[in-house]
């Protein structure tokens, strides 16, 4: 397996709060890694370190051998290769859906307008939103906005896609439409790192599940082992928070 992303001994703190401690993680091309863990355990911070939105004190993030460092000149080039979708629908509210999608390929990658437009329209069709291309983000539902955000990341042709709880702010009936889009991406052999609280989805999409707790990796394994026979007490306890029974 060819590795695309390598995290080596990564530690990160905010002032005197240590958020991540000695994280080591290697992701292979085409692999889908799902990161789960309780709220506040450092999942978002880890994703943000991967695309250089946070500075790193210790350790390294390597994309195909190149160090991701927010203070060096090549960070923008690296970010083009790492797509990210956030929890809050973060579309640009002053642009139409099509313009949202086309902005970065045109201005950052300087690609040909007609070609970009064609690809944007194809991608929109693929997520079922062709009819919304001339609308503004406000006119879309949360689920629709997240699908556009995914397309906006995809059109850059990233080698790795990061998803940070992209359905956490959605009404339950909209979760499915967004997760289906991500499942479709997995079937195209995209490399993805997905942070989610949707356990059924995690089980279905993951090649590997990583449990993060208090800034360290507690357990990682294939989804069947992780969900059906977790090894650590911490993992068992975490998984039990998703089970319900009448007292």
């Amino acid at each position, binding site marked *: 397996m060819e590795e695309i992303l390598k995290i080596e001994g990564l530690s990160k703190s905010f002032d005197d709060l240590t958020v991540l401690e000695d994280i080591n993680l290697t992701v292979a091309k085409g692999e889908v890694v799902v990161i789960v863990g309780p709220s506040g355990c450092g999942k978002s911070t880890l994703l943000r370190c991967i*695309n250089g*939105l946070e500075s790193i004190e210790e350790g390294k993030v390597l994309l195909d051998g190149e160090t991701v460092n927010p203070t060096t000149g090549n960070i*923008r*080039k690296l*970010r*083009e290769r*790492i*797509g*990210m979708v*956030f929890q*809050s629908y*973060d*579309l*640009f*509210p*002053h642009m*139409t859906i099509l313009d949202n999608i086309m*902005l*970065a390929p045109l*201005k*950052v*990658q300087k690609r040909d307008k007609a070609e970009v437009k064609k690809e944007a329209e194809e991608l929109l069709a693929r997520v079922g939103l062709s009819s919304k291309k001339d*609308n*503004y*983000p*406000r*006119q879309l539902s949360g689920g629709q906005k997240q699908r556009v*955000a995914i397309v*906006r*990341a995809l059109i*850059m042709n990233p080698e790795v896609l990061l998803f940070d709880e992209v359905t956490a702010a959605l009404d339950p009936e909209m979760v499915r439409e967004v997760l289906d889009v991500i499942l479709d991406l997995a079937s195209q052999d995209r490399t993805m790192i997905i942070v989610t609280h949707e356990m059924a989805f995690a089980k279905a999409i993951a090649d590997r599940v990583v449990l993060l707790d208090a800034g360290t990796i507690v357990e990682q394994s294939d989804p069947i082992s992780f969900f059906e026979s977790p090894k650590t007490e911490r993992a068992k306890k975490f998984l039990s928070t998703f089970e319900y029974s009448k007292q």
Partner: protein
Amino acid sequence: MDLEVIRSYIPLFAKAFFLTLRIGWIGIALAILIGMLSAFVLYFRIPMLSGFIKFYIELFRNTPLLIQLFFIYFGLPAIGLSISAEVCGAVALGLLGGSYMAESFRSGLEAVPYIQTESAMALGMSKGRLFISVILPQAISISVPAIVANIIFLLKETSVFSAISLMDLMFTAKDLIGLYYDTTESLFLLVIFYVIMLLPVSFAGSFLEKKMRYSMFGD
């Protein structure tokens, strides 16, 4: 009120009106320019300049235009720089307005959520590119109501120009009252001309606010 008097005064007032309008709008254009540049300096926290801009804003927001006018009009010649009353009026208005506009633009810039910057960065955009394409358009649209309010405020402030002998509306009214005691007619024309000057701005302002919101955010 004597309609004949009013009719005979209209040309004088019209002349003063255009003078006031001209200086007013030059001053406002200057204010918008100064305000924008100042807001950029504050938003990007440019070292040294930020402190200077903060000082400038506090100084001009907390002194009356009349005093600023006097300082520029009588103060500059004292250090060997003489400028005409017209230039002085426009400059003073521009400096006063700049301090207000700076605050309006700055709060517009700061009202744009940080996640917008981060999403643009995640797409590989440079600081400059994301500022121009993502932050600035949203900030301007948020600032429009405050900017329109500032413009109206500044146009009203033009009424102190007469203090440096600019033949503006106020000067004309006072002059005619002093000369002929046609107080009612002069004050009537003064009010009318100020209303003529401000009403279109008010209307254009609310139209622009709606229009901007629509073209910016689709609602």
